């Protein structure tokens, strides 16, 4: 019998692959979250720590183990599993604390790609981008390559690999090397994927910075989706019963799981938020019509049929209620003036208006001390859309930010500069307009209700990364060589040999399947755009998406920020 002590961050991703019931079948009796102090009492033989390799966690573990030793309770065995990798430094720290010997097993559990949805895999490695671009630590790329190898072992060798960016090149190299070193020889599985596209996040820094305008994207922007779960303010979800108006509203946030298993959500998640309302009201009509049918049910057979549909209908109704509430919550925000102003400025930048001047709105926001991340998003967006800011503009922004938010943010600004999000315009030429025009990144006539182009996900801006994927499928990257050269990092194509017996014989009308791997994170809007491409009737390509982490502008910038606490005086 055993108990698991969880690093709290890991419970989310693990919840997606192993529920408590499954663990219980494997004799896990208790589960705790890792906390300082003593371990809660549990009558178990083994204690297993599941932790990320972080030094501060090691200190907590050491405290746990030491206090356990003092109590002299029945001897327990300790084990430690590092996710996703063992770390020498952590073991060293445990050794320094004198508890390393207490652990009977020290292993690593390399959790690479976790399925998030039918077409979405993520490694949930929150610091991948920061590690790759700021710290020059490419461990996460190694894990990505390993995840891809696992995927290939299960779904066959992917014959073509395309990529853009330094990290992509690196991952492809590692994959090729791992394949060469794989002693089992040829993989004899029929290849499912036709193409793998590896994309660096720094090829497209713009998309995460802009505000996503799909339903799911907005939920993420506003409330943050963590491992497919979202926590929402409970007020709107209180059961509305008459006569109970004065009763206390629930204070616990409402937690909802969001994935395509929910029929309604699958339909609306990738729509532009402006198109969600009409779908919801249509759904509402259909459901109430379906409920009305009971009045028409005359015969016992009809009633029986109605009753058998009832659970499904009730589920649909509650799902509709939930999403209506969420939509209301979001609408409150999207209709606010501030949201609108912010969006206007973003769209101005993305369509290339006044990107080289100090922006009034940004200045005002700084003056009013709006949240720093919002400011950074705006400034970075402007910098990216202008291929860097002029010295004067950049200095002004920096000064304003430092004076308003505090000098300690100088490190954050440095980080952003290092990552290329905020930079000085080096050449006199601004590449962004060329890129925008060639790749048609800005579409003026957007149809949000019935979109005909991926630009609907940002109501005008077509995410560059997805455009690259789209152009790769048709007509191919050769047509955009010039632009590819302007984007950072090399682009490349690799072919992996597969035996002739396994080569695909394409049937008429059969879609090609492309795996798009975003190194450094992907936003929900980009995912929506790729799903939109999959569903296009004449597209001919379907997409599966993999990434190191699901991000949005806020979480992304946050991961690049340096936290400094002034010393107490």
């Amino acid at each position, binding site marked *: 019998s055993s108990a698991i002590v969880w690093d709290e961050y890991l419970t989310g991703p693990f919840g997606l692959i192993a529920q408590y019931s499954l663990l219980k079948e494997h004799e896990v009796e208790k589960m705790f979250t890792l906390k300082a102090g003593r371990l809660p009492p549990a009558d178990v033989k083994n204690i297993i720590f599941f932790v990320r390799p972080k030094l501060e966690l090691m200190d907590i573990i050491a405290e746990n183990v030491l206090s356990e030793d003092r109590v002299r309770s029945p001897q327990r065995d300790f084990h430690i599993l590092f996710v996703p990798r063992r770390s020498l430094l952590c073991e060293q720290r445990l050794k320094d604390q004198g508890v390393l010997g207490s652990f009977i097993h020290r292993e690593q559990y390399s959790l690479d790609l976790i399925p998030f949805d039918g077409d979405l895999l993520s490694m949930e490695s929150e610091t991948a981008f920061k590690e790759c671009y700021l710290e020059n630590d490419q461990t996460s790329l190694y894990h990505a390559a390993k995840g891809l190898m696992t995927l290939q072992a299960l779904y066959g060798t992917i014959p073509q690999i395309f990529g853009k960016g330094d990290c992509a090149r690196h991952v492809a190299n590692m994959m090729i090397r791992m394949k060469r070193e794989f002693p089992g020889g040829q993989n004899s599985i029929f290849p499912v994927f036709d193409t793998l596209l590896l994309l660096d996040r720094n090829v497209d820094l713009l998309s995460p910075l802009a505000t996503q305008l799909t339903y799911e994207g907005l939920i993420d922007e506003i409330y943050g989706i963590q491992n497919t779960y979202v926590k929402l303010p409970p007020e709107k979800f209180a059961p509305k019963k008459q006569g109970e108006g004065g009763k206390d509203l629930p204070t616990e946030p409402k937690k909802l799981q969001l994935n395509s298993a929910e029929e309604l959500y699958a339909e609306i998640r990738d729509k532009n938020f402006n198109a969600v309302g009409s779908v919801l009201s249509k759904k509402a009509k259909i459901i109430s019509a379906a409920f009305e049918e009971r009045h028409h049910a005359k015969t016992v057979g009809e009633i029986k049929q109605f009753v058998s549909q009832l659970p499904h209908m009730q589920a649909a109704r509650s799902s509709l209620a939930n999403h209506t509430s969420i939509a209301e919550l979001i609408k409150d925000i999207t209709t606010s003036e501030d949201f609108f102003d912010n969006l206007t400025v973003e769209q101005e930048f993305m369509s290339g208006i006044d990107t080289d001047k100090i922006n009034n709105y940004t200045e005002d926001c700084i003056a009013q001390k709006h949240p720093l991340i919002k400011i950074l998003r705006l400034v970075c967006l402007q910098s990216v859309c202008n291929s860097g800011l002029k010295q004067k503009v*950049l200095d002004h922004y920096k000064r304003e930010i430092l004076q308003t938010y*505090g000098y300690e943010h100088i490190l954050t600004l440095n980080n952003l500069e290092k990552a290329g999000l905020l930079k000085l315009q080096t050449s006199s030429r601004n590449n962004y307009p060329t890129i925008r025009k060639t790749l048609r990144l800005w579409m003026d006539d957007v149809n949000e209700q019935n979109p005909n182009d991926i630009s609907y996900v940002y109501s005008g801006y077509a995410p560059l990364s997805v455009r690259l994927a789209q152009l790769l499928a048709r007509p191919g990257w050769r047509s955009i060589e010039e632009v590819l050269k302007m984007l950072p990092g090399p682009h490349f194509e690799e072919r992996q040999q597969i035996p002739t017996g396994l080569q695909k014989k394409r049937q008429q009308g059969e879609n090609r399947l492309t795996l798009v791997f975003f190194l450094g994170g992907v936003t929900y809007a980009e995912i929506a755009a790729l799903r939109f491409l999959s569903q296009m009737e004449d597209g001919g390509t379907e997409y599966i998406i993999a990434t190191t982490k699901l991000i949005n502008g806020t979480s992304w910038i946050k991961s690049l920020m340096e936290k400094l606490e002034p010393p107490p*005086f």
Partner: protein
Amino acid sequence: RKFELYSMAWNLQEDLRAPYLSPAALLKNNLRREKSPSSRPLLEIYSASGLPLASMPGNRPGLGLSSSGGGEEGRGWPWGGGVQEETGCLVAGGGGGGGEGTEVLQNRVREAKVFHTEYGTGVAILTGAHRFSLTTNIDDLKLRRMPEVPGLQKLPSCWAVLSQDRVTLILLAVGQDLYLLDSTSCSVVTPPGMSPHAGAYVQMAVSFNYRYLALLTDTGSIWMGTASLKACLCLSGARPPPSLSSESPRIPACLCLSGARPPPSLSSESPRVPACLCLSGARPPPSLSSESPRIPACLCLSGARPPPSLSSESPRVPACLCLSGARPPPSLSSESPRIPACLCLSGARPPPSLSSESPRVPACLCLSGARPPPSLSSESPRIPACLCLSGARPPPSLSSESPRVPACLCLSGARPPPSLSSESPRIPACLCLSGARPPPSPTCQLHLPCAQGAGSVPGQRACSFHTAQGAGSVPGQRACSFAPGLTPGALAPRKRARRRTSTCAHRLLPAWRSSSVQAPGLTPGALAPRKRARRRTSTCGRSRTRSCYRRPVYTVVLHLKNELNRGTFFMTLQKQPVALSLYRQFCKHQELETLKDLSNQDDDHQELGNFHVHASYSKEQSREHRSAACESRRRGVLASAPQATEDQIKLLRMQRRLQDELDKPYVDFSLHDTVYSLILDGSHKRAEQLYRDFRIPDKRFWWLKISALAERDDWEELEKFSKSKKSPIGYLPGCPIALSMRPGPSAPLSAARAGGGRAHNSPRFPGRELDQAADAAIEHKNETELNLVLAKCTAATDSAVTEKIHRAKAQLLKK
């Protein structure tokens, strides 16, 4: 040559003298035993191995044995000699079985030495008058008197005969002085490198070929060098002169014995001798090079540490040769096509990194008990990276990129390294012969079930291992042909095993797949990069692709950190950007000071600046750190950062002052917050000053001031402020701020005032709020307020409010 010690069963109390490998002469003094003073002493000559060669009686009672000499090459006869009391000297030679002797007559002989030169056996005599005479050949007795030594009043403390360029010389030491006597003159000499404080000479010895000389002083130091006194080979306890070079074709430039430190630079141009020879505990000089084609640059014996860098450009010798217990230098390279970079014998530890670029030799050759260096690579297509013989442990990671040779070849008793990989499709990573243990690699364990089938073949565990490892791609015969003692019959089951392996591998595939999720340590992919990373970090950036595996890189980095000295370690890191950045992360967690040093070393002002900023927030002395940050930033190219930092320092100074004056916390507020709280406290003057000092843009200052004043509820001040200057942000923003700050009925009123009371410019309120404002004004019974609200009303929409206000005004007027 061989050095051996025999213990002989003689119970000798007499003198026994025998130089190197020569016969021993023994003067048996029968006096003591037989108590007969007149009896003559017996001179016996023995060969080096103890066989008696000759024996003869001396004619007079002797003083004792003085010297005996080795055989003359031409005649093959050994010679012995003795000094007869006071009168002369007997020189005896034993040839064949009998003996013959020659007596040299001289008065008052004090000491005599027999020597051998190309002219034959000679004798040198020191008389009681402190004069030397010598003859170079005793067969042709012609005594030559040597010149007088000036001021010699007593017997010299020691002396020796030298023969140089066919001239016989006498070297004698009196106290601290050395004199060299030739046939005509006497000169004072000093050995090079001898310290003046070395003391008086007490003993000297000359090598049998008169080339080398050793001197011992009463302080215990030993000087060794050439007999010409021109080159010093070594000094024990003293430091040899800083630069030495040996031009002699036969001697090393330096010879170090225990504890001596050789001079810092040495070079040997001789084709036959190493530049340096180190014996136990001596440390060779840091840089050595041997240009000779036949001799290693350094030769280290037990416990000696070879210099850190060596290179051999010679085609025939390894750069370093280490014998038992010696540690070869950390970096070696052999560019020679025929010789391994390092050759380690029992117990020697080869240097951590070696590489052989030669196509024919392994990078390292380890014999019994030697531990090969941790990382090796062979780029040669024909040679394994490592060759380990009995008991040697191959390095932990090896890889062979060659298509034809295994990465490692282990012979009897050797243990192959734990991780191996072969990129070649034809060759197993490791080839183990009799008794060698295959590495405990997970891959091996994974295939173990299949391998067991072959285990029944006697003694062929190792073979079953390579079949498993090669996963069927190695032709069985070829792999097995290396294993000794294999009969062809043994091949068949192995072939079968091989076949089974491949099918087994096939079946294992799904298992592996699932295991790749559950226990990723077992995936083959996990093995190779580790090793690769390790090699990459220690060999110098040969490949441009970067490794990305934190743990192994850390392993290597930490190992290097412990092994190398700091400077070398940093230099090594410089070449490894990934390792460097990982080490930076490590330092960020554990050794902040090192981080500083690293940035300092790289001249990375940005990083250094960041470090100081970090430090300033975690330590007390923030000011100093920030000025340091500022300084380092200024040195860098960044234009704006130093300005920002300077501003911050200025701000901190002001905040401290404010904190002292106003007794409220200000330090480490941002400038914005500082001004804000100053306004909140009503210190408008100070706020204005900050505004000017830091050149806060007008716009921001207005926003700041309006919101602060609104929060303070200071509407009079707000109104005053709004009227003071034309607002750069318009008068609109004041209202929503006022509305949000002051919920309640009087909000719109405040808002109106915030708008600066300018009717033409102020915002329009929705009717409801205007109504509230009117109510508030009526309640206050304040006419100006009423007028203000009235000004906001438009006749068309707000007639009700207008009317209400007029009524209130009328009422007010009545009162």
